[in-house]
């Protein structure tokens, strides 16, 4: 892998950028691999990358039915934070946050992680109680999250409306300064490049149509639109399609897949310096490096794989944005789109071994998986390599729905995140 740097760019600039290598190769699938990852989104590619870079397993295929990074990775609003309530959640999201810091250097690919701060607004006494609970728990877990008065919130994000006359006046905010955003495509591409350079095969336009199991019940490989591919270990990282893939192995999941829409405005000069989220008013916003306001909120209400949703959902989202930022009514929506988010009953992910030997699953990230990408891939790689969970993902089992040991972040996840 040729290193990227400003010097490399200067060199290439002299020769019309003809010397760049392919960022990832497009090989034909082999008959068999040590590990197959189903799904070349951020989490799947990161899993392959860490299997190769930390566990010495490079005979890996990442199978993707479309184009890499084309699912939720390329459709999300790129919010990164780790100020979750429960120890288990804080553990995995902060593991990810620590990896975000330094990921560009690790991958030699600028993923544009920008710790611009994530500010969550409190609009009523209940919000204040909930956020304070988070702040105190985070502090004792070593995770930054601080309380801001309305005036401090306004100072941190000048266009915010903190008028007492607002329908839901801002009563304060919880700010995680290490939170922020990253460039979604770059994350997928950076991991793909890093994995590909270590020998991982990323096979696009290759849809998994079945999971094969040997006589002893263990996984033996997958059927695909490009033929059978063998592997003793298969990791399913298929986001909204996780139920579909897991069903192929006879494993029924506690998941439902919903449309989640987002939109961007036309680009404008910098105006929103951080990420602002509101559960009560129900929307969130940040501004991309390009200048687009990046906006999202909740899911549509029904199970769907259509990657589209209703206009009324966007209406509610923009109602909320213009309530928080009345100066934005003259801004224009440039693009809207939908993803398919797989939601568990407790709004926490499943990263675990499954009842089928050799089959592992990483799913259920709901509306907030992007932020976990490096951490998720990292511990999932460990789970696959060692055939046992990393302590960080050990609580995120499938069994918790039988025992009742849920990790219920639902209250904090009332708005997509």
């Amino acid at each position, binding site marked *: 892998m040729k290193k*990227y*740097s400003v010097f490399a*760019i200067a060199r290439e600039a002299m020769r*019309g*950028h003809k010397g*760049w*290598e392919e*960022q990832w190769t*497009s090989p034909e699938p082999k008959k068999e691999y040590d590990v197959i990852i189903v799904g070349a989104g951020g989490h799947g590619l990161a899993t392959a990358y860490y299997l190769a870079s930390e566990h010495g397993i490079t005979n890996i295929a990442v199978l993707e039915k479309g184009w890499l990074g*084309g699912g939720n990775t390329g459709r999300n609003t790129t919010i990164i934070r780790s100020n979750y309530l429960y*120890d288990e959640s804080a553990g995995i999201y902060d593991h990810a946050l620590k990896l975000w810091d330094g990921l*560009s*250097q690790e991958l030699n*690919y*600028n993923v544009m992680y920008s710790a*611009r701060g994530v500010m969550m607004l409190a609009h*009523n*006494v209940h919000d204040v*109680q*909930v956020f*304070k609970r988070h702040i105190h728990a985070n*502090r*004792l877990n*070593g995770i930054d999250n601080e309380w801001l008065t309305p005036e401090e919130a306004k100072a941190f994000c000048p*266009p915010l409306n903190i008028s007492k006359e607002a329908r839901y006046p801002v009563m304060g905010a919880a700010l995680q300064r290490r939170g922020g955003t990253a*460039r979604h*495509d*770059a994350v997928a591409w*950076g991991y793909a490049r890093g994995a590909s350079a270590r020998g991982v095969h990323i096979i696009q336009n290759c849809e998994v149509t079945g999971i094969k199991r040997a006589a002893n019940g263990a996984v033996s490989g997958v059927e695909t639109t490009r033929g059978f591919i063998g592997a003793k270990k298969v990791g399913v990282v298929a986001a909204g399609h996780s139920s579909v893939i897991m069903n192929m192995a006879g494993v029924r999941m506690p998941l439902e897949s919903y449309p989640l829409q987002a939109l961007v405005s*036309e*680009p*404008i*000069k*910098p*105006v929103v310096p951080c990420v602002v989220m509101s559960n009560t008013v129900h929307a969130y916003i940040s*501004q991309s*490096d*390009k*200048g687009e306001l990046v906006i999202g909120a909740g899911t549509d209400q029904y199970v769907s794989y259509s990657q589209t949703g209703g206009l009324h959902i*966007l*209406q509610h989202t923009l*109602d909320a*944005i*213009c*309530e928080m930022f*009345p*100066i934005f*009514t*003259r*801004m*224009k*929506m440039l693009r*809207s*789109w939908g993803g398919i988010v797989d939601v568990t009953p407790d709004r926490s992910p499943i990263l675990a071994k499954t009842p089928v030997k050799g089959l592992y699953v990483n799913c259920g990230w709901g509306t907030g998986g992007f932020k976990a990408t490096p951490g998720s891939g990292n511990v999932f790689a460990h789970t696959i390599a060692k055939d046992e969970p990393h302590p960080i993902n050990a609580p995120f089992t499938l069994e*918790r729905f*039988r025992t*009742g040991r*849920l990790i*219920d972040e639902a*209250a904090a996840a009332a708005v997509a995140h």
Partner: protein
Amino acid sequence: MNAAFRISGAGRLSQAKTASFSFDGKPYTGIAGDTLASALLANGVHLVGRSFKYHRPRGFLSAGAEEPNALVQIVRDDARKTPNVRATVQELYDGLIANSQNRWPSLAFDVGAVNDIASPMFSAGFYYKTFMWPKWAWKDLYEPKIRAAAGLGVSPEKPDPDHYASRYAHCEVLVLGGGAAGIASAVAAAETGVRVILADEQAEFGGSLRFESGARIDGQDGYAWAQAAIARLKAMDNVRVLSRTTAFGYYAQNFVGLVERVSDHIKNPGRELARERLWQVRANRVVIATGAIERHMVFANNDRPGVMLASAARTYLNHYGVAVGRNVGVYTANDSAYAAAIDLKKAGVNIAAIVDLRDNPSGPVIDEARALGIEINFGRAVVSAGGKLRVSSMTVQPKNGGGGRTIPVDAILMSAGWTPSVHLFSQSRGKVAFNEESKRFVPGAYAQDCVSVGACNGADGLDATVDEAYAAGAKAAKEAGGKVGKGAKPKVDAGESWSRGMLGAGPGAGPGTTVKAFVDFQNDVTAKDIRQAVHEGMHSIEHVKRFTTNGMATDQGKTSNMHGLAIAAEELGKPIPQVGLTTFRAPYTPVTFGSIVGHARGALFDPTRRTATHGWAARQGAVFEDVGHWKRAWYFPKAGEGMHAAVNRECVTVRKVGGLFDASTLGKIEVVGPDAAKFMELLYTNPWEKLESGRCRYGIMLREDGFIYDDGVVGRLAPDRFHVTTTTGGAPRVMNHMEDYLQTEFPHLNVWLTSITEQWAVIAVQGPKSRDIIAPLVEGIDMSDEAMPHMSVREGKICGVPTRLFRMSFTGERGFEVNVPADYGEAVWEALWAEGQKHGATAYGTETMHVLRAEKGYIIVGQDTDGTVTPNDAGLDWAVGKKKTDFVGIRGLTRPDLVAKGRKQLVGLKTKDPKVVLEEGAQIVADPKQPIPMKMIGHVTSSYWSENCGRSIALALVAGGRDRMGQTLYVPMPNGTIEVEVTGMVFVDEKGERLNG
């Protein structure tokens, strides 16, 4: 006075009515009916913007919504500055103020243009490869610079004083696009009598008839026919004609979003006019008649101001009467640009040369151009445009290479062919198909009840278009229930026909070249950027798009997508359909947030629910808090009192004398029917069958998973009638939960549920004097302890109006809740208040209510519980019927983790220092000396200063809490650790004697 480039006798605007405007501070004059673009061009102004990345000078590419370059800021006043307005769409009004964007210090001299010089460094995706060292510098150094350079216009800085309207509409046939096709379809559909809506984004209908000088329909000039047809349609009751209206999104089941620009073109719109109006239309059938968009030619420096689409120049001439230059070159790969050259030539503009990439084309327009004496060069290409702030020349070469010559020009008109506008069809989830012969994506398989007609469907020629459109309109109307129409199909006497064209880079910009031949103007994507993306492994068109940002600018790739695709396909060595088209996403053109939001701003953002006594409380100076949609009185400060003083006074007064509290927001459900008790048994953990009429019970509702969902006091009014109360926030979901079980799991039960939350205003009267306050106003109810003990309910009258009088207490004092019909609520409150005043009672708000209940250890669901708490955790096991064999949640409660040891249990906490009030949400540890991350064993759920106890009190969820009574635990805070003792949850009157006190 005519502007320099306005040609007298040309165009359709009347010169009589002028309009003054300014651009970048310089005054100009246009005429009524101009767009900002036509008015500037009439004044010879081409330079209007700077590009996104390289800050290259830019002029007008188009005359319509596809415009990538000419984006300006329109300033109405201080609060109404609109960024990124397409000058080609903005209609001129007298006094219009426009400014250019993304330049500093000025449009002509922009420092950012240094990026153009350094552009070899800024190749596609360069930012992914650098700015990584040192690590901190991305956020603090590089990113701020990149951000400052990016973006186009500037956000408004003040709240928008304009308003936006919204409406739903239904029709049998919705026609999108008001060119010849759309009008023909609308006419055919309208004649059948069905409801028709016809929408077009332009101010005038006609579409390409606005510039097609050769069209004649029904014996009239094409444009005149269009106006006449529109006038007829407008006169019909069953037709709604919407101009300035963009169909931006096509959603499921023929639901289409339209935005009508109501007043952006008016000088001083009255307050009665919305700025924009959203139409959400549900149509039985949709006819898509969105036309086609001309593509530019891809050659070096094709972005110089003055280089534009041929059809745009024609529109400026034939509609606005404006010549885009005096010495114009033409570069084309199809016939339509000839028509532009001919029209301009006839208007007296010199045509320097037509450069045609094709080898030996023939046809009437070519003959006519030749007859007019225009120089025509076949098989040749424009390989470069000269000039900087304005095009000054074009360099022409044989297309396969060889010696070239430079021709001076002040404008270049180009046409690479026409791209059908399949955006809305594609948004409808229809599948496009590539027509190999015409090199176009056209509608293939349909997913909804719609049909595409005319140029967007690949129809060539006006005759074919009108034929197809009229038939489709009639068919759609018939399918939607229309009668047979009695009209006749419009007859096309003459029309223009477009031929094919080319896709991708032209000669001189092909593989191996490094020239800046723009594919996407706004985002500065050149042909070589696309090739580089492919070279770097981006084999999917989606990767190419994202890596280069081709097609992601505010014009949504209307002119660039097909060229980009063709270049990528060529580089990949694959046919175009195999590389695929990127997805078309709503909106078709950008729409304002305001238009989407409509009325839902300010007071209409969300309903504000107020109780019947709100006015009284407001007059008393109450401070309100938001609880769900409700405004509830939080506390009632007297003059000079802060919140704490007010709450302390209210708390003490209630326990000493009494207090009035508005409990109206609590949900109330009347459960009626012979099986009412059976139903209650299933929905609540408690037993109900044996509850006597006239008595009340505190009930707990679980979800099936065993966690507390809601609680409230339930009164049995009669054997078959319960009056159930819920939490304020829980009211709607509890009702839904109960209906769900009743309708789907227990439909055999004869019982019905009715929400009576708002039927009854509820005035809680609590405190030792409560009975004395109420009794004088009550008729027909014996309020003695014997006749009406704690937890009972009676029906009677108060102040002569019906009441459901509950004896119950959320304070631990003797207490009542007076339910009266809501319209009487305030007057009855006033009567009770007058009685209360005699005893020195107080009005109190939600904060005091919270303190008083915490003093008694009563929980608030949602505060002391959070969806993970069982009745046992909350110390409410007594409320779970032990002999019951079924209730919702019975099985969830016995799951392994719910019966495990060490669960968090609700307990009381007392700080060692009684003056210290814990913070709600504060975390609790057993060992304060441990390092971070600490092992947290619980958190404070409720915490108050209790004036009645003379100390702070708190409730907390603590792991194994009830086994820790008397233990010392710790609450580590940023400024020191607080010691607390675990206690019971009751801080006042543990024996409960005050209930009868």
